[in-house]
């Protein structure tokens, strides 16, 4: 017998933490961080764009946090993560030859991976601080992460 709790995640982090989480998460979908010229190139003709707001998020404003973006790419598809006016995380998808619906689907997958990565990192950090030991950890076929922790 047990108690079962279901929680919806809320991403609360500063920009450097978000950068690290996005970097780690998007790689699992074949995206990589774009730098320099690639990151600058935008608004090319024929590009379809779709924006996804992540309502359950709050990017803490701190030094260097304002105006920052993270650009990731995969085969001509670009995803730009940024902090919107309300302080929430936003992803702008861009790609040639993709419909808005396709971009939204891929963007949502990216958001899901980032959210899962954030939660995993947060849970593991807090459990360690409370001296809870991870006794098993596995990733199911559907990518659900299962962790078992103990207080000794």
């Amino acid at each position, binding site marked *: 017998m047990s108690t079962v709790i*279901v*929680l919806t995640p809320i991403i609360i982090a500063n920009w450097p933490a978000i950068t690290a989480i996005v970097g780690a998460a998007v790689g699992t979908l074949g995206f990589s961080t774009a730098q320099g010229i690639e990151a600058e190139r935008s608004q090319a003709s024929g590009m379809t764009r779709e924006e996804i707001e992540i309502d359950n998020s709050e990017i803490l404003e701190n030094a260097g946090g304002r105006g920052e973006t993270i650009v990731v790419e995969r085969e001509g598809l670009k995803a730009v993560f940024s902090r919107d006016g309300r302080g929430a995380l936003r992803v702008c998808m861009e790609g040639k030859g993709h419909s808005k619906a396709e971009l939204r689907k891929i963007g949502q997958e990216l958001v899901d991976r980032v959210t899962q990565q*954030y*939660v995993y990192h947060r849970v593991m950090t807090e459990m360690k601080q409370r001296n809870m030991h991870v006794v098993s950890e596995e990733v199911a076929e559907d990518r*659900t992460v299962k962790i078992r922790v103990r*207080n000794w």
Partner: protein
Amino acid sequence: MAREELEIEISPSGKVTARTIGIKGPRCLELAEFLARIVGREESRQLTSEYYEAAEQVQEHVDVKQRW
């Protein structure tokens, strides 16, 4: 200390389902609140019979010996 375990599942979209094992009484609520604080908003909580069992009673006997 009694063995306390937590089974935590993080779905592909980041939703968390946590199950407490061997945790009785109000300590369950304490843990639920702790998880909510680190993860986000609590959607549901199901209290089963284990919750209603009394938390482990700790008894301490102190022997006081007279020294005279």
